[in-house]
């Protein structure tokens, strides 16, 4: 069950031939292998590995790799039954697919056994429930917010937009040669442009499916989606910085921090870098707000990341211990204090005075805004289906092609619809 022999062996090797004393059976000889993909909060988590060892005596070998490496590694590990990973980074967006493939071990007992289970934000937690079992615990919940340069909006004599239609007008008023009105991610990918674009889609009443989850007929080629896409294209091409068609995370962040863009609508990990005084030249000028809405209301983006246990794990007990530690109030509080954004998944973290002080300094109502956005966000903002990664990529590529003028918005939606139908027909 636990790699006692293995640990003792390596300890003996370390000691060399002297073989001084019998090795104590508890401390140091338990290990847990954790595979995460790189994002600020996973890097922050890896930095806390020593705390985990100090508390539990378990060595956490945390490997943080790029997303492409991550995907090939887990694919090989899971399909090959390598069992070299005890804890795996489990984005909500992949849970359905991995569960269907039989890659994840349920962690229901661990979740139900938590004394403070109710402290975990229910939206993010429930997203890990598939067929009545939990397959992960969340450590990160990012929501969509808007950041805008109050100084520039004031100078243009406009108020922060409440809807995307207003956004078009504000952008027109604010846009100048020095500062583009708005920068958003356009690079193709289910986690890139398809993280932000559904905010427009859903605000205009557009959908992925006719009636999720009851009627799973693709519904991309609707007038609502077309309106959303046209708005997105106009905003990006007419009021975005030059080269926006290939913008991804770092480019958007840099444009905001360097004063090349006046507004953005994206996840907290981007907007909080605009208001981070250590990195942004205009931290004081940026104001955070809820993302714009539309005829169908506001639908902030949501991305939840958690930790799961690969199926067939021989080390499940230790793995569960690590997951409990990583998603505990204490650890999440440390992350909220160490990192630049409040993407914690427990309500109690918001009650910590230090956390409150830190984010109040950025903006009085930062934490409240986030809670409000989380409450507005729908769990299936991006559909929770096994084929989403494939569908998301296909739509994202067509949307990107439309922004870059490779096809018309109508053609893009039509193509995306068609591809979605093919994917779902398998």
């Amino acid at each position, binding site marked *: 069950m636990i790699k006692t022999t293995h640990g003792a062996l390596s300890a003996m090797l370390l000691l060399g031939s002297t073989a001084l004393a019998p090795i104590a059976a508890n401390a140091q000889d338990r290990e847990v292998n954790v595979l995460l993909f790189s994002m600020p909060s996973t890097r922050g988590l890896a930095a806390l590995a020593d705390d985990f060892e100090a508390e539990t005596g378990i060595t956490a070998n945390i490997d943080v790799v*790029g997303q*492409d490496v991550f*995907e*090939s590694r887990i*694919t090989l590990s899971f*399909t090959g039954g390598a069992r070299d990973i005890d804890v795996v980074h489990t984005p909500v967006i992949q849970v359905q*697919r991995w569960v*269907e*493939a039989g890659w994840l071990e349920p962690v229901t007992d661990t979740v139900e056994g938590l004394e403070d289970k109710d402290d975990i934000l229910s939206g993010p937690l429930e997203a890990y429930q598939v067929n009545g079992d939990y397959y992960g615990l969340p450590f990160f919940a990012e929501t969509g917010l808007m950041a805008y340069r109050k100084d520039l909006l004031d100078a243009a004599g406009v108020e922060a937009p409440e809807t995307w239609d207003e956004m078009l007008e504000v952008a027109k008023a604010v846009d100048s040669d020095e500062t583009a009105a708005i920068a958003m991610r356009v*690079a*193709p*990918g289910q986690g*890139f442009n398809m993280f932000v674009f559904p905010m427009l889609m859903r605000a205009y009443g557009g959908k992925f499916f006719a009636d999720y989850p009851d009627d799973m007929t693709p519904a991309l080629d609707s007038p609502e989606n077309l309106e959303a896409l046209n708005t997105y294209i106009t905003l990006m091409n007419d009021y975005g*910085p*030059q*080269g*926006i*068609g*290939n*913008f*991804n995370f770092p*480019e958007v962040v*840099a*444009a905001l921090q*360097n004063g*090349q863009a006046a507004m953005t609508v994206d996840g907290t990990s981007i907007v909080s870098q605009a208001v981070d005084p250590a990195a942004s030249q205009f931290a004081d000028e940026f104001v955070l707000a809820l993302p714009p809405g539309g005829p169908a209301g506001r639908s902030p983006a949501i991305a939840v990341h958690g930790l799961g246990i690969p199926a067939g794990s021989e080390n499940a007990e230790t793995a569960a211990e690590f997951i409990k530690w990583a998603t505990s109030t204490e650890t999440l509080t440390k992350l909220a204090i160490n990192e630049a954004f409040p993407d914690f998944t427990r309500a109690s973290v918001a009650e910590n005075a230090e956390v409150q002080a830190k984010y109040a300094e950025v903006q009085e109502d930062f934490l409240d805004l986030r809670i409000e956005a989380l409450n507005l966000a729908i769990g299936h903002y991006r559909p929770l289906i*096994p084929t989403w*990664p*494939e569908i998301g*990529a296909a739509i994202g*590529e*067509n949307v*990107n*092609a439309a*922004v*870059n003028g*490779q*096809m018309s918005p109508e053609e893009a939606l039509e193509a995306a619809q068609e591809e979605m139908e093919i*994917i779902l027909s*398998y």
Partner: protein
Amino acid sequence: MPATRASAAMDRTYRRMLVPASLAVGIFAITPLLGMLALSFTDFHLVRGWSGEIGIQNFVRLFEDRRFISSIYIMMALSVFGVLAQVVLGTAIAVGLDKIVGRWRFARGIFVVPFAVPHVAVALIWLSLFTPTLSPINAFFAVFGIEVPALLTTQTGAITAIVIADTWATYPFVMLIVLAALQGISPDLDEAAALDGATRVKAFFRITLPLLYPTLLMVALFRFIETLKHFPLIFVMTSGGPGRATQATNYYAYVQTFQNSNVAYGASIAVFLFLFAAAISFYIAKANARLSDA
């Protein structure tokens, strides 16, 4: 005959020396290759698994798949223009450096530097150079009121950008090999050409360049096969975009295998790539033999 016995013993020794390498190739190259080949005849899907069926359906699908066919055009554009640019630039610099001796020799070291930069870092460097809001190039020309276009938002531009980044990172490979070849060409030939009345340019094109052909062909082949495997530059610089305009075949294999879970189909694309590279290698090796038998 003692001589024969000695040489047979030598042969045995050489054969033994090949054992570890053969094992390594067998285990780490041939096995996965066979695995990939086997996979390509199944319908294995990461999530849905394998139905037990075997057939050539994946290969039939390849030739009906518009994305696959367009990925070949993209791959060929990246490879052909990339290899051309690398060979021309690498050769030009090698020819320049070849004549430099004495204390300026350290220049060679400087020109090799990009070769040591990891591909992902190369991609990040050029991504920022081609992003108008981040690029010092755009900032410089903006001073004169000139707007440098954003390369990465059009297909031609994005392919150009990847070719430039790839060329920057790999011309040193061409340069080093050409430099070695140049040093194998007798300086007498240059002098003879000078006495024969050839200008430096004519001497280069009539004497040096033809003598470099076999080397250039080999180096182009190496680079060509390498460029078929384009991945990090595309992944980091364009994510395959704009749209799908830079989804070269190898990238498309990744998309099918890992993003779309179509492992078997991805394997059939990989098999195609392997056969394609092998065919080109074979053809060029033959051409090379013909060129160098003189």
